């Protein structure tokens, strides 16, 4: 099925929309004045809920419902926080929004701010995205100068401004409570929940946290109506979703599709250009590295939340990493666990120690030095890590290993016998 560029308005426009004039010419900043003139905040929240938009950062929680959890009678200031700490391996969709369509994100954050009665929005952007942060800085300055941020927007009584806040290299800060800790000037370690951020988030105030893609989806929802959005895709997975395809494909890149309409096979072979000649799909991590992999037998799974869950994985962030039969599941799994070991914040022992143990065991297997009990020891670790930590990072490390063992038993048996030689990588095609 074809692509549908709704969040990626810049692609529809055929050029980057990094100036306010260009964004307006492409239909931007029509939603905000309409909302401020015609709707009260509760109506707008209801519109978000009716659209069925689900959080695009990974968990898929309904956005409108999340907004409705903020207490209406709180005397404290409320905040919107945009999670732009895009660090999930294989995920690079938010980067393109911020770099080429920054005003749609600003407009989306402002709409969310109006819906919950917020006084300020924060964009927490990963430190490695300094280039994108500077694009956002310029966009915020231009929006302020044009009266699109500041006091009394569009002659209403609504005051709202946005701050771009840079992280400094920590995957864990994409976890919402760790992000809040970091934004508050502390070490970025997750908090015990409850209380949830909706009740006590940034500076103990009611806070709505959403991913970049989620917030950038709001202007089109207002422009075209919640019914239009809810009518796209399936009942439980409405709307469009950006998939970032990388790894062993000919055309890696971002592809915005209507949920439920496109299969994994179409995403890889039609949109992303397929594999090198003579290669077959070995494994695909559809929703970023934290989700269990799928095999060739799952290629006809439609890309939506329910169908992917039924296939044994998760839609996650949409970071779809494709590996062909030249790659090694065992080596790639080790790499993935190394990532989680490195990024474990160290707060919870099962995660801090467990990811390190998993890495050591996997390294022994890859090096061909595994003992007869090592695989059993690896399996025994899962239950000692899983479900015993404050945040889902540890779960993200365990799930993919567990599934890789189930789906590819022959690869593991072979690795235990012989180790795993370094596979030949797919190098860039010289142009």
């Amino acid at each position, binding site marked *: 099925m074809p692509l549908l560029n709704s969040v990626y308005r810049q692609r529809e426009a055929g050029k980057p929309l990094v100036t306010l004039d260009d964004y307006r010419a492409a239909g931007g900043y029509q939603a905000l004045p309409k909302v401020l003139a015609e709707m009260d905040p509760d109506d707008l929240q209801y519109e978000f809920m009716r659209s069925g938009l689900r959080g695009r950062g990974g968990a898929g929680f309904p956005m409108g419902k999340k907004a409705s959890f903020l207490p209406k009678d709180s005397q404290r200031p409320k905040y919107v926080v945009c999670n732009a700490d895009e660090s999930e391996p*294989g995920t690079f969709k938010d980067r393109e929004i911020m770099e080429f369509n920054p005003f749609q994100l600003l407009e989306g954050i402002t709409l969310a701010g109006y819906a919950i009665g917020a006084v300020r929005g924060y964009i927490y952007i990963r430190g490695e995205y300094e280039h994108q942060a500077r694009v956002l800085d310029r966009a915020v300055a231009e929006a302020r100068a044009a009266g699109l941020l500041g006091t009394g927007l569009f002659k209403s009584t609504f005051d709202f401004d946005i701050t771009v806040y840079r992280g400094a290299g920590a995957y864990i800060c994409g976890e919402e409570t760790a992000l809040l800790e*970091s934004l508050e000037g502390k070490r970025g370690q997750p908090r015990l929940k409850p209380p949830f951020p909706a009740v006590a988030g940034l500076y103990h105030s009611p806070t709505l946290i959403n991913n970049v893609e989620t917030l950038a989806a709001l202007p089109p929802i207002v422009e075209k109506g919640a019914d239009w959005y809810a009518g796209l895709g399936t009942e439980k997975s409405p709307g469009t979703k950006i998939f970032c395809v990388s790894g062993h494909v000919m055309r890696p890149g971002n592809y915005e599709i209507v949920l439920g309409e496109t299969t994994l096979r179409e995403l890889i072979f039609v949109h992303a250009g397929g594999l090198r000649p003579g290669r077959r799909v070995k494994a695909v991590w559809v929703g970023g590295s934290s989700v269990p992999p799928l095999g060739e037998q799952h290629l006809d799974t439609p890309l939506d939340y329910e169908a992917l869950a039924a296939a044994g994985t998760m839609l996650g962030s949409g970071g779809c990493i494709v590996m062909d039969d030249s790659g090694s599941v065992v080596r790639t799994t080790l790499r993935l666990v190394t990532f989680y070991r490195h990024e474990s914040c160290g707060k919870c022992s099962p995660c801090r120690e467990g990811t390190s143990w998993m890495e050591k065991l996997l390294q022994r297997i890859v090096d061909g030095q595994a003992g007869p009990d090592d695989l059993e020891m690896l399996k025994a670790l899962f239950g000692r890590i899983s479900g015993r930590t404050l945040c889902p990072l540890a779960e993200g490390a365990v799930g993919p290993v567990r599934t890789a063992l189930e789906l590819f038993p022959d690869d593991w048996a072979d690795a235990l016998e012989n180790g795993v030689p370094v596979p030949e990588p797919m190098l860039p095609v010289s142009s």
Partner: protein
Amino acid sequence: MTADQIREYLEPRRHEFADPRSLVLPALKFAQTGRGYLTREDMEAVAEATGYSASYVESVATFYDRVYTEPVGTRVVSVCVSMSCQLRGADQVWEALCDKEGVDHHHGGTSADGRITVQEAQCLGYCDRAACIQVDAEETQGPHTPDSARALVDELRAAPDPDEYWR
């Protein structure tokens, strides 16, 4: 970097935060632009400018990969080694740069002339341009091969030092 310089940088941003503690990380990042890493004096200056203790400031600084509390090279070259880049030759790029700069494959490190630090990076978010490399906090670039990565480091070595070290 002096406490006054840090204060001057923070002042226009202060009103954006309900709690001034939020200024600690921006202050650290700014203080680092002076020499590319933080000395004890830099952290004490951040402490003075923000009003928190030096030990607190250090506890924040040591949490983040991109805040350096030990000396690093004039340019820091981060080679992404996460899954997507691994599949597209990141390990070969990494080893080529380590060999070129004479640092070990396990930890990377700084070249003997102090010009280049080679370090592993976790996913940089440029998987569509794997294998990718980021120099300091400049825009990430790719796809790289061992040859193109070696050429990049040669260019960096020949280039004048940056005015500010954003990392």
